[in-house]
């Protein structure tokens, strides 16, 4: 008799831990532990201003990581998110500063540029059957070069466009609740996350994202036009990168054409820490968000404890390996 509730509890637990949820919980727990650890180590850490700085630092990497998550769930990889971000910023700069167009057109240009480049990557992968790693590696270099060519290797400043810096640095929330002046960049991050999460779980596009990563041939044999859906996913990811481009350009009040390389690896790191499987088919936006936060908290905390920058990089690398290892151990036990 007494055995019955026991069994129930087990299966409920089992359900909770299924489908990569464990690593999400693990990631979340690590985040909490990091927060507690750092606030014990330094009284400066838990201050509102520092928390906001962490969120601010997360915003760009977080948005890029969300774009990367979409592509990675399909079983692909996107190495071009960093330089594409810069390229969209440069294009926005061209439209706003060089051509003197109004702000909304600049915003649209940035996002449309991202979507267009995503479309190209998607076409290379889906139609021309170039492996995602190669296709986006090529795009990464092409876009890096184009950013430098178009800008003449000089930063483009947005001084002539009043209000551009508010995209990232203003605070709509702060106007309503002065106690929590969360910057717009962070607000945008959460909006993008909510939208991406909705798309993944509730729309056809999201469904095919998982289906493609799970067994592409099976989807194709079911009569689905896998090529077009894949292109759509890469295009969406590109548009999201365009949003990141706007945030960073606004934060720096300039488009810095030499920036961008390396961001793609940080984005992929956040995705992996968040429990998304690099072999495709599994992953969540919430996990990615937590992954990006862990990285930002870690860097911020180590900086407050005056750990040298070089060591911060070492720690990040170790965390990635640990996160994936923990998930593997869990899965082996589960079987």
């Amino acid at each position, binding site marked *: 008799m007494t055995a019955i509730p026991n069994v129930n509890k087990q299966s409920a637990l089992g359900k909770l831990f299924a489908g990569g949820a464990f690593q999400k919980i693990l990631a979340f727990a690590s985040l909490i532990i990091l927060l507690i650890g750092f606030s014990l180590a330094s009284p400066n850490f838990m201050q509102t201003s520092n928390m906001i700085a962490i969120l601010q630092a997360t915003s760009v990497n977080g948005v890029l990581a969300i774009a990367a998550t979409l592509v990675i769930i399909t079983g692909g990889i996107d190495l071009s998110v960093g330089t594409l971000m810069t390229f969209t910023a440069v294009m926005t700069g061209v439209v706003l500063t060089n051509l003197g167009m109004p702000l909304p057109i600049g915003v649209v240009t940035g996002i449309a540029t991202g979507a267009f480049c995503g479309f190209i990557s998607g076409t290379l992968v889906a139609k021309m059957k170039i492996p995602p790693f190669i296709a986006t590696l090529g795009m990464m270099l092409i876009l890096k070069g184009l950013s430098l060519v178009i800008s003449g290797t000089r930063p483009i400043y947005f001084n002539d466009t009043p209000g551009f810096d508010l995209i990232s640095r203003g605070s709509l929330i702060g106007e309503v609740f002065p106690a929590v002046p969360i910057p717009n960049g962070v607000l945008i991050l959460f909006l993008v996350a909510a939208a991406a999460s909705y798309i993944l779980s*509730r729309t056809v596009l*999201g469904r095919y994202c998982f*289906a493609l990563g*799970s067994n592409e041939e*099976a989807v194709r*044999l079911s*009569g689905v036009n896998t090529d077009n859906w894949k292109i759509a996913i890469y295009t969406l990811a590109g548009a999201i990168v365009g949003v990141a481009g706007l945030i960073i350009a606004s934060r720096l009040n300039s488009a810095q054409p030499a920036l961008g390389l390396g961001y793609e690896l940080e984005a992929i790191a956040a995705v992996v820490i968040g429990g998304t499987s690099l072999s495709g088919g*599994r992953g969540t936006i919430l996990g990615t968000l937590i992954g990006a936060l862990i990285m930002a908290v870690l860097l911020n905390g180590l900086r407050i404890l005056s750990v040298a920058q070089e060591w911060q990089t070492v720690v990040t690398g170790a965390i990635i390996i640990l996160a994936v290892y923990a998930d593997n151990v869990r899965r082996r036990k589960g079987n």
Partner: protein
Amino acid sequence: MTNLVEMRGIEKRFPGVHALKNVQFDLRPGEVHALMGENGAGKSTLMKIMSGIYARDGGDMFVDGKPAAPDGPRAAQNLGIGIIHQELSLMNDLTAAQNVLIGREPRRRFGRLDEPALNAKTAEIFTSLNLAMDPRTMVSTQTIARQQLIEIAKALSYEPRVLIMDEPTAALNDAEIRELFRVIEKLKSEGVGIVYISHRMDEIKRIADRVTILRDGAYIDTLQAADTPLSKIIQLMVGREVTQTAPDIPDTSDNAVALEVRGLSRGKDVRDVSFNVRKGEILGLSGLMGAGRTEVARIIFGADPHDTGEILVSGQPVDIRSPQMAVQAGIGYLSEDRKHFGLAVDMTVRANIAMADLTQFTSRTGVLDEAAMKRTADQYINQLGIRTPSDTQEVRLLSGGNQQKVVIAKWLLRDCDVLIFDEPTRGIDVGAKSEIYALLEELAAQGRAIIVISSELPEILRLSHRIAVMCEGRLTGILPREGATQEEIMKLATQTENLADKTKETTQ
């Protein structure tokens, strides 16, 4: 009555293979038309042409008397042609319902999914199949048999007028097969034409109306199933007579025990299992799907841990904690799921065979001796009759049955004393089956101990010297082959614990 589908003079070539030579086939409404032939005869290829997955190189196809050339799965679906593929093609990370209705998800506006409708629609299909399954179940958590049922549900959801089933029963147990046949009868009565491919000869008599036979890519004949004896069909398939009778059982009672397990247990899957196999003996391990046979094999092979119990090899207790240790102890295991565990399908036949024991082909400097690998591969290709243009063909391009032979070749190379074969003839044609039986007998005669797990009772009765039967993780009995009948085995295979308790109570 016009034919639903008619194919004439169909030609198909792959690099190095003339897969179909002037093949004809027709299908009438409301009939089950069996397509028979050895492994590699071209059955799947012909059906992939009918369902728009391959383009034909020559010939004509008519649907409802009108010329048709479906150029993809979607086009075939629009013509009312659905197919259940030989190889499972499901998306493991999605739920059952998401798989069944992939590509036709009920949608709301702006591409949003209507998940409740999706699940309800799938539940309806499951009910019509008498399949008790929550539509929200993750496919990856299901056994191969249940995944196959999901696949069948998926094909039915298109409400096809032509339904192609490429070895749908390879992974199903008897009850599930009966259920499938019930569905087939229902579809027949609704006027659906069904193409049925299977290597289980008994099924042909049970459901087929007509039989078309292919051999080596060529059309042989189309016959009425009712007035053609099976032996005739087999002869046409193979091109020669196949002996079906079992040889005498050698007396192995004096031989040394090669492998013994005592009180093996693992959770609920395996409970207190004890048995032994002697050198030169073939022990059949029978039972229904999920009886724990594969689990026992995996424990012996070190692929899974066990809670209690002992494993003895040649009388010595061994502590096997990984497949590598099992191989060192002289134990080999051929998995039932060859795609996942048995083969590197993107590599060549030669590479796959040699992979079993690369040290044999490695020089002292660590260089691989390709010439020796080729010799060995060619030897097994001949010995097992593996149908492949050369030893450098990629394994994924072989027909299902021939892939299985590659797995067997791999393990023959390893020269183990104890070999466990898990469903060794699944998806293998009659001719090759008898070759594999002969092979297993030869291996036993050489003094190896063989364990064969099989869900096909005729196979168990044909092959085993002794038959161990499992039910719900327990060993319910061991029968000598002499005098053993299918009924006796089924009785032990369905002797659930409650039943066993009851019989105990009544006898006390």
